[in-house]
Every structure is written in C-alpha cells, then in structure tokens.
C-alpha cells in the first residue's frame, strides 16, 4: 500500500473534504474529528513517502492512470518536496486542532461544514502543488488552493469579503500569468512534464518564446509567493481573515509558492541556465534585497500585531529570494531550510496572535501590557517565535540565516549579506518592542492597574494550548537537529548542477 502514498496524499483530503461537507449537512459535530482524522492520515502518507525516499535514496515516481510521463501526469516525491510535504502535514494538523475553539467563536454554526470542507480543500491544493510533477496539473491544484483561500478569507466579517475580492483579482492575475507561462513552455517544447521539460529545454534556452514564458511563469509564482513587488494582496487579506483561517494560510500558502519557484528555477530549468547563462537568480536576489528592507520597515511601522506579522511573511519570502539569488549550494540550502523553518515559526506566531485576539481582545501592540501575567504560555510562545525569527542561535531561525549568509558571502554578494543582517536587526527591534510591552509594564502605569482589575483573559482551552506548545517545541527541535536535517535531507534536495 505504501507505493500509493504519493497519490493518496491528494486523494484522501479531496475525498474527505467532500465527505465532511456531506456529513456536516446531517451532523455538525462530526466535521472536526473527520478533518483531524483526514489530516492525520495525510501526515502518515507524507511521512511514509518521505521515509521511502530517505531509505531508498531515489525519488518515488507515480504515474497517474498508468500513463507514462510525457503523456500522463506524474507525481514525484523526492528529497525537496518530501520535506515540504511533511512540514505542510504537521503544520496543517496542528492548525486544525488549534483552530477548533476559534472556529466555534468566529464562524457561525451553519457555516462549520463548509469551513472544514474548504480547510481540507486548501490542504489538498497545497499537497498537490508540492507533489505533482506536471506543470499544468500544478496550475489546477494552485487554483484549487487559491479558491479555498478566497472563500475562507471571505468568511470573515466586516471588510473580509472586500479583502477577499481584491485578493482574488490579484491571485487570478497571478494564476493566469502562470498559465500563460505554461502555454509558452508548451509551444516551445510540446511537453508538460517537468523532468521531460528539463531535457527538451536545454538546446532552446535562448528562444524568445521561452524567455517570455519564463517571465510569465516567474511573475505568476511571485504573486503566489507574495514576493516583494507583487505582495500587496497579503497584508489586507490575511489581517482581515478570521484568525482560524490565517493560522492555516499564513504559514503555508506563500511557502509552497516559494517551493514552486525553487522547483521551476532549478529542476525545470537547468541551474546553469538560471544562474549563469541568464542572471535570473541574481535579479531575484536584488529584488529580494529591496523586499527585505521595504517590508521590514513597513513591519516596524505597523501598530496592529497581525498586520505586522503579514509584512514579516513578505520579509521571510525576501530571505528565501536572497538564498536563491546567491545561486550556490549554501545559499540554496539556506533558502530551502528557511522555507521549512518559516512554516513552523509563522505557524507559532499566528497561533499566539490568534489566541491574544480571541482571549485578550486586543490586536494592537500597545494593548499587550500585562500579557505575561494573564496568558503566560502565549507570551512564551511569542518569545520563542520572535527569537527564532530574529535568529538567536539554538532556535531554527538562526541556522537557516547562517546558511543564507554563508551563501551570500561565498557568492561575493556583499549587499545580499548586508540585507540579511540588517533584516535580522530590524526584526530584533520589532520583536523586542513587543516583548517590552508584554513583560515590562511600569508598576505605576494606569493601564496596568486597569488591566489588572478589569479584563481577566478567560482560561485558554487545552485544545489551543497544546498545539501552540507543540509548535514551540518543534521550532526548538528544528534548531537542535538542523545539522541532521541539512546533512541527510537538504544536501540531497539541492538539484544537481548548482
């Protein structure tokens, strides 16, 4: 049965999302356990397929419908997407368990079945985008993930539908330009399978149709990845989305976009092309440098905690861009490892912010006084997440930043290294402003007395505390075992020829 794991990863969440919707019509309480069961199954599938890749050392190829690659759709699980699959499975499972009390609080009861159906559909799209080896199939799953994201964001109240609509306009623009890119690729080569494309593309690298195709492809992926110039949709949509939705979307959606960029630049196109022949990666690197500086400063300027984290996502995308820009082994190791770490770090931070918004009834940074007294675990989670994003050693953020800086220096790109360092400094100022507000409040500060006497954050449900604590432990473990992960998984994940 294990040979079918790589397709079950997409089929099981797809089927269970519709089954959850059907059962939800009769019995609303069954939705949550069914979702968690489906996500647990996906975790088993992704971990199983990744383990087979690790043990056999060769990627797993799965021909859908028995058709051989150039004709049929092929699902490939290799070192790179095995890692990403397992990370998505873990983060989405924890997000589902965490979001339970928030769903009960934020989503009207009649909409629970559709919410969980869309939740699973979103996870299907993410899994599919990671595991597929076919360019057009990737577009279809990209759209599945995007629809469910639009609908999930639209479920919020107030300005959420409006933000969802603007996000849809931007997202469709991105997806259509990806489709156009695939069209041009198809004209030039006649094939859609990634491995097949790599061989066919080599002799025709400098044909104009291919250049235009690559440009459209990268534009589409940049929109999905919220890369700097085209990231405008992210802050509004993720801030206005209900926090049970942003806990799933924020860590995963943009990171899978980053994974697709690495896949396109280094597996579909030969690394020698995208690094030396046509300086694609250097351009990406320079844009990422601008992105890091811009979004770090924007994050500093925000008063709203959640909007600040959204700009942080754009910064993290910038770090991955710089890793790709360096275009050498340590740089790429850094960006792949940062992609992995960022899923857990952002998951942890958005869980903490969701809990603060739900129980402490505030989202502005100035309203956080006395947080450590009424919500100690959330404050600790915020500290662990913040320190990891800054890059304080034993946590995972440091090691990925270490490889990024190594890559930038080895590529003699001093501005890249400078941007990375300045970025982590700006993040430090950003987060310590929050820690100050959470932990130190002057004893004679009037707000302190009101906070003490007035609102007492109600007890956080265990269902929220455990996933947050687990995520914090994962962030620490990722840091401690970074050497192991890099040597055994990421070292092989880097496509040959970098």
């Amino acid at each position, binding site marked *: 049965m294990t040979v079918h794991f790589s397709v079950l990863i997409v089929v099981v969440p797809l089927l269970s999302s519709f089954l959850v919707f059907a059962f939800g019509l009769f019995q609303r309480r069954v939705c949550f356990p069914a979702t968690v069961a489906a996500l647990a199954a996906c975790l088993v599938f992704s971990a199983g397929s990744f383990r087979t890749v690790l043990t056999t050392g060769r990627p797993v190829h799965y021909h859908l419908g028995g058709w051989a690659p150039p004709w049929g759709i092929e699902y490939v699980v290799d070192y790179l997407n095995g890692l990403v699959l397992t990370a998505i499975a873990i983060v989405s499972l924890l997000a589902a368990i965490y979001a339970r009390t928030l769903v009960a609080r934020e989503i009207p009861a009649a909409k629970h079945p559709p919410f969980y159906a869309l939740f699973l559909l979103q996870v299907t799209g993410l899994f599919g985008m990671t595991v597929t080896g076919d360019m*057009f199939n990737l577009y279809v799953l990209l759209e599945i993930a995007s629809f469910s994201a*639009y609908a999930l964001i639209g479920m919020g109240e107030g300005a959420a539908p409006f933000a969802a609509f603007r996000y849809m306009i931007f997202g469709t623009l991105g997806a259509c330009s990806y489709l156009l890119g695939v069209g041009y690729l198809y004209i030039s080569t006649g094939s859609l399978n990634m491995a097949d494309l790599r061989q066919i593309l080599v002799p025709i690298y400098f044909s104009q149709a291919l250049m235009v195709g690559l440009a459209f492809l990268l534009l589409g992926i940049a929109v999905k990845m919220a890369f700097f110039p085209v990231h405008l949709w992210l802050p509004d949509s993720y801030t206005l989305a209900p926090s049970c939705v942003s806990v799933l979307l924020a860590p995963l959606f943009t990171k899978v976009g980053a994974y697709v960029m690495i896949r396109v630049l280094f597996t579909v196109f030969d690394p020698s092309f995208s690094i030396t022949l046509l300086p694609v990666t250097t351009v990406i690197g320079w844009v990422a440098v601008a992105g890091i500086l811009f979004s770090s400063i924007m994050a500093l300027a925000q008063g709203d905690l959640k909007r600040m984290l959204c700009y942080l996502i754009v910064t993290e995308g910038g770090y991955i861009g710089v890793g790709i820009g360096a275009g050498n082994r340590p740089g790429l190791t850094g960006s792949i490892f940062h992609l992995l770490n960022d899923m857990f770090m952002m998951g942890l931070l958005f869980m903490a912010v969701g809990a603060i918004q739900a129980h402490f009834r505030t989202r502005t940074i100035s309203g956080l006084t006395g947080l450590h007294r009424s919500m100690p675990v959330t404050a600790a989670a915020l500290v662990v997440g913040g320190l990891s994003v800054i890059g304080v050693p034993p946590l995972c953020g440091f090691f990925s930043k270490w490889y990024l800086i190594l890559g930038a220096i080895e590529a003699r790109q001093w501005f890249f290294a400078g941007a990375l360092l300045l970025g982590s400094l700006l993040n430090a100022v950003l987060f310590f402003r929050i820690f100050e507000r959470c932990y130190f409040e002057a004893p004679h500060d009037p707000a302190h007395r009101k906070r003490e006497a007035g609102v007492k954050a109600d007890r956080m449900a265990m269902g929220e505390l455990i996933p947050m604590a687990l995520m914090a432990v994962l962030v620490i473990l990722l840091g401690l075992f970074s050497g192991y992960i890099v040597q055994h998984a990421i070292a092989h994940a880097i496509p040959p020829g970098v």
Partner: protein
Amino acid sequence: MMEFIFGTFNYGIYVVLILIGFYGMMAKNNLMKKLIGMNIFQWSIILFYISIGSKKGGTVPVVDPSLHPAIRAVDYINPLPHVLMLTAIVVGVATTGIALALLILIYRTYGTLEEDEILEVLKK
C-alpha cells in the same frame, strides 16, 4: 510581412483581449466591471491555448475513418490544448462563482459596489 500578420494574428487578438481584460480589472471602479475584466482576461488565455493547437487543413480531433484508415496526426488538430482548456473553463466558472458570491456579501454589508465608496466606509 503579410504572412507574418496572417500567420500570427491570433496572438495579436489574444494580446489585445488580455490588455482589455487587464484594463478592466485595474482601472474600473465598479467591482462588477472588475469581475467582467477578469473574465475577459481568463478567456483570452483560453483563446491563446486553443489557437496553439490549430493546424492548416487539420479537422476536429474526433477519429473519422473516412479520412484515412490509420489515424495520421496531420489530419487532426492538436487535441491537448483543448483538453487543458476544459479545465481552465471549469476554473473560470468556479472563480466567477466565488467572485459573485463575494460581491453579494459586499453588497449586503456596504450597499454599494463602487470601490471608492467602500474605501470611504473602510477609512472611517
């Protein structure tokens, strides 16, 4: 020069349609017009894909024994873009479905579909 124009006028048309759709999406104030612009944008890409598959003298890609006992590819136009575009049509319908649902929600909360009026309400 002439055969260049006739040879690639389909690309010309699809580029014009894309620009119209793009203009509609970006410049129009009314959200419904933005949606229409988005649809034009999507459908122009579908036109682009279909025009890729066409061959001179090829017929509809349905097996017709009267043409030639064996199936020769030259007789039929390339069916793959058509299949791909089936999916893209479904995607277009789904996007429009969700967009209309969101527009209903927006209209219900703000009473208008003009973007500047909504932004005014949001600013307050």
